[in-house]
Protein backbone atom coordinates (compact mmCIF):
# COMPACT_ATOMS: atom_id res chain seq x y z
CA UNK A 1 0.00 0.00 0.00
CA UNK A 2 2.78 2.38 0.87
CA UNK A 3 6.55 2.77 0.72
CA UNK A 4 6.48 5.21 3.60
CA UNK A 5 8.65 4.39 6.58
CA UNK A 6 9.74 5.92 9.85
CA UNK A 7 13.24 6.41 11.20
CA UNK A 8 14.89 7.53 14.39
CA UNK A 9 16.90 10.74 14.23
CA UNK A 10 19.79 8.94 15.88
CA UNK A 11 20.36 5.31 16.85
CA UNK A 12 20.47 5.97 20.59
CA UNK A 13 17.25 8.02 20.62
CA UNK A 14 15.35 5.43 22.65
CA UNK A 15 18.19 4.48 24.98
CA UNK A 16 17.16 4.50 28.60
CA UNK A 17 13.44 4.39 27.85
CA UNK A 18 11.30 1.58 29.25
CA UNK A 19 10.07 -1.15 26.90
CA UNK A 20 6.55 0.28 27.02
CA UNK A 21 7.87 3.60 25.71
CA UNK A 22 9.74 1.90 22.88
CA UNK A 23 6.70 -0.15 21.90
CA UNK A 24 4.44 2.88 21.98
CA UNK A 25 6.94 4.90 19.94
CA UNK A 26 6.99 2.18 17.30
CA UNK A 27 3.19 1.99 17.19
CA UNK A 28 2.64 5.73 16.98
CA UNK A 29 5.45 6.32 14.47
CA UNK A 30 4.01 3.57 12.25
CA UNK A 31 0.58 5.13 12.41
CA UNK A 32 1.91 8.57 11.58
CA UNK A 33 3.85 7.17 8.61
CA UNK A 34 0.73 5.45 7.28
CA UNK A 35 -1.32 8.60 7.79
CA UNK A 36 1.27 10.75 6.03
CA UNK A 37 1.26 8.33 3.09
CA UNK A 38 -2.45 9.03 2.72
CA UNK A 39 -2.15 12.80 3.22
CA UNK A 40 0.77 13.26 0.81
CA UNK A 41 -0.37 10.97 -1.97
CA UNK A 42 2.15 12.34 -4.48
CA UNK A 43 5.00 11.15 -2.27
CA UNK A 44 8.33 11.59 -4.07
CA UNK A 45 6.66 13.80 -6.70
CA UNK A 46 5.38 16.27 -4.08
CA UNK A 47 6.52 19.86 -4.59
CA UNK A 48 4.41 21.78 -2.05
CA UNK A 49 5.45 23.00 1.37
CA UNK A 50 6.15 20.41 4.05
CA UNK A 51 4.50 20.53 7.44
CA UNK A 52 7.63 21.30 9.52
CA UNK A 53 8.23 20.14 13.08
CA UNK A 54 5.21 18.54 14.72
CA UNK A 55 4.45 16.91 18.04
CA UNK A 56 1.94 14.18 18.81
CA UNK A 57 1.04 12.69 22.14
CA UNK A 58 -0.60 9.47 23.20
CA UNK A 59 -0.88 8.22 26.74
CA UNK A 60 2.48 8.89 28.36
CA UNK A 61 4.30 9.35 25.07
CA UNK A 62 5.20 12.64 23.43
CA UNK A 63 6.74 12.25 20.01
CA UNK A 64 8.24 15.07 17.93
CA UNK A 65 8.89 14.36 14.29
CA UNK A 66 9.64 15.74 10.84
CA UNK A 67 8.02 14.62 7.62
CA UNK A 68 10.28 14.24 4.59
CA UNK A 69 7.51 14.00 2.01
CA UNK A 70 9.75 13.48 -1.02
CA UNK A 71 11.75 10.89 0.88
CA UNK A 72 8.46 9.23 1.95
CA UNK A 73 9.52 8.98 5.56
CA UNK A 74 8.99 10.50 8.95
CA UNK A 75 11.98 11.08 11.21
CA UNK A 76 11.37 10.91 14.95
CA UNK A 77 13.61 13.57 16.47
CA UNK A 78 12.53 13.53 20.11
CA UNK A 79 10.70 11.12 22.37
CA UNK A 80 9.39 12.10 25.79
CA UNK A 81 8.00 9.56 28.25
CA UNK A 82 5.97 11.03 31.08
CA UNK A 83 5.84 7.91 33.21
Amino acid at each position, binding site marked *: MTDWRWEL*FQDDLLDGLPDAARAETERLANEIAVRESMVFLEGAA*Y*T*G*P*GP*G*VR*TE*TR*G*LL*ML*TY*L*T*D*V*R*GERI*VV*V*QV*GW*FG
Partner: protein
Amino acid sequence: MALAWARATRALGERKGRPMTMPYAEGDTPLIPRPDLTLPALRQAVATVVPSRLPEFFEDVQKAFVRAGDEDSVVPIRMFYREWGVIVEIERHPETARRLHAAEQAINSAEPAVRDRAIREAGEIVRAAHREVAGD
Protein backbone atom coordinates in the same frame (compact mmCIF):
# COMPACT_ATOMS: atom_id res chain seq x y z
CA MET B 1 -10.02 20.26 35.96
CA ALA B 2 -9.22 22.91 38.58
CA LEU B 3 -7.67 20.18 40.68
CA ALA B 4 -5.58 19.01 37.75
CA TRP B 5 -4.42 22.56 37.21
CA ALA B 6 -3.38 22.97 40.85
CA ARG B 7 -1.49 19.68 40.79
CA ALA B 8 0.26 20.59 37.58
CA THR B 9 1.24 23.97 38.97
CA ARG B 10 2.71 22.31 42.06
CA ALA B 11 4.50 19.66 40.04
CA LEU B 12 6.05 22.26 37.80
CA GLY B 13 6.90 24.80 40.51
CA GLU B 14 10.29 23.23 41.00
CA ARG B 15 11.23 24.16 37.46
CA LYS B 16 11.25 27.84 38.35
CA GLY B 17 14.48 29.66 38.96
CA ARG B 18 16.72 27.38 36.95
CA PRO B 19 19.73 29.16 35.44
CA MET B 20 19.46 30.31 31.87
CA THR B 21 21.95 28.67 29.56
CA MET B 22 22.74 29.39 25.94
CA PRO B 23 23.37 26.34 23.76
CA TYR B 24 22.71 28.30 20.61
CA ALA B 25 24.71 30.28 18.12
CA GLU B 26 26.92 32.93 19.62
CA GLY B 27 25.32 36.34 19.42
CA ASP B 28 21.82 34.87 19.24
CA THR B 29 20.62 37.08 22.07
CA PRO B 30 17.28 35.95 23.45
CA LEU B 31 14.40 38.37 22.94
CA ILE B 32 12.98 37.53 26.37
CA PRO B 33 14.12 35.47 29.36
CA ARG B 34 13.02 31.83 29.41
CA PRO B 35 9.47 31.88 30.78
CA ASP B 36 8.32 29.75 33.68
CA LEU B 37 6.27 26.76 32.60
CA THR B 38 2.99 28.28 33.72
CA LEU B 39 0.02 29.17 31.60
CA PRO B 40 0.24 32.98 32.04
CA ALA B 41 4.01 33.06 31.51
CA LEU B 42 3.86 30.87 28.40
CA ARG B 43 0.92 32.80 26.96
CA GLN B 44 2.78 36.07 27.42
CA ALA B 45 5.92 34.59 25.87
CA VAL B 46 4.06 33.22 22.85
CA ALA B 47 2.31 36.58 22.39
CA THR B 48 5.72 38.25 22.37
CA VAL B 49 7.94 35.96 20.29
CA VAL B 50 5.50 34.14 18.02
CA PRO B 51 2.10 35.87 18.13
CA SER B 52 0.95 34.21 14.90
CA ARG B 53 0.73 30.93 16.82
CA LEU B 54 -1.50 32.21 19.65
CA PRO B 55 -4.68 30.65 18.22
CA GLU B 56 -2.91 27.28 18.08
CA PHE B 57 -1.68 27.85 21.65
CA PHE B 58 -5.21 28.42 22.94
CA GLU B 59 -6.51 25.42 21.02
CA ASP B 60 -3.81 23.27 22.62
CA VAL B 61 -4.61 24.61 26.11
CA GLN B 62 -8.20 23.60 25.60
CA LYS B 63 -7.28 20.12 24.35
CA ALA B 64 -4.80 19.56 27.18
CA PHE B 65 -7.32 20.45 29.87
CA VAL B 66 -10.10 18.38 28.35
CA ARG B 67 -7.75 15.40 28.15
CA ALA B 68 -6.53 15.99 31.70
CA GLY B 69 -10.13 15.97 32.92
CA ASP B 70 -11.08 12.91 30.88
CA GLU B 71 -8.05 10.96 32.01
CA ASP B 72 -7.88 12.42 35.52
CA SER B 73 -4.19 13.00 34.89
CA VAL B 74 -1.80 15.95 34.82
CA VAL B 75 0.28 14.32 32.08
CA PRO B 76 -1.52 16.10 29.22
CA ILE B 77 -0.86 19.42 30.92
CA ARG B 78 2.81 18.62 31.51
CA MET B 79 3.07 17.67 27.83
CA PHE B 80 1.41 20.90 26.80
CA TYR B 81 3.90 22.90 28.89
CA ARG B 82 6.82 20.94 27.46
CA GLU B 83 5.70 21.35 23.85
CA TRP B 84 5.08 25.09 24.11
CA GLY B 85 8.11 25.62 26.33
CA VAL B 86 10.17 24.17 23.48
CA ILE B 87 8.47 26.34 20.86
CA VAL B 88 9.16 29.44 22.94
CA GLU B 89 12.73 28.31 23.66
CA ILE B 90 13.40 28.24 19.93
CA GLU B 91 11.45 31.36 18.98
CA ARG B 92 12.96 33.56 21.67
CA HIS B 93 16.32 33.06 19.92
CA PRO B 94 15.81 34.77 16.55
CA GLU B 95 18.81 33.25 14.78
CA THR B 96 17.94 29.75 16.00
CA ALA B 97 14.34 30.23 14.90
CA ARG B 98 15.50 31.46 11.50
CA ARG B 99 17.75 28.41 11.06
CA LEU B 100 14.95 26.06 12.08
CA HIS B 101 12.45 27.57 9.67
CA ALA B 102 15.02 27.56 6.85
CA ALA B 103 15.66 23.87 7.56
CA GLU B 104 11.93 23.15 7.59
CA GLN B 105 11.75 24.65 4.10
CA ALA B 106 14.83 22.77 2.90
CA ILE B 107 13.20 19.46 3.88
CA ASN B 108 11.11 19.94 0.73
CA SER B 109 14.17 20.05 -1.55
CA ALA B 110 14.35 17.72 -4.55
CA GLU B 111 17.90 16.82 -3.45
CA PRO B 112 18.09 13.98 -0.92
CA ALA B 113 21.39 15.30 0.48
CA VAL B 114 19.83 18.72 1.10
CA ARG B 115 16.88 17.07 2.85
CA ASP B 116 19.21 14.99 5.03
CA ARG B 117 21.14 18.09 6.07
CA ALA B 118 17.92 19.96 6.80
CA ILE B 119 16.62 17.13 8.97
CA ARG B 120 19.92 17.05 10.85
CA GLU B 121 19.82 20.82 11.43
CA ALA B 122 16.14 20.95 12.47
CA GLY B 123 16.49 17.86 14.67
CA GLU B 124 19.52 19.24 16.53
CA ILE B 125 17.72 22.53 17.21
CA VAL B 126 14.59 20.80 18.48
CA ARG B 127 16.56 18.37 20.63
CA ALA B 128 18.66 21.15 22.16
CA ALA B 129 15.50 23.09 23.03
CA HIS B 130 13.95 19.99 24.63
CA ARG B 131 17.08 19.49 26.74
CA GLU B 132 16.90 23.09 27.94
CA VAL B 133 13.21 23.00 28.77
CA ALA B 134 13.16 19.52 30.29
CA GLY B 135 16.30 20.33 32.27
CA ASP B 136 18.06 17.09 31.41
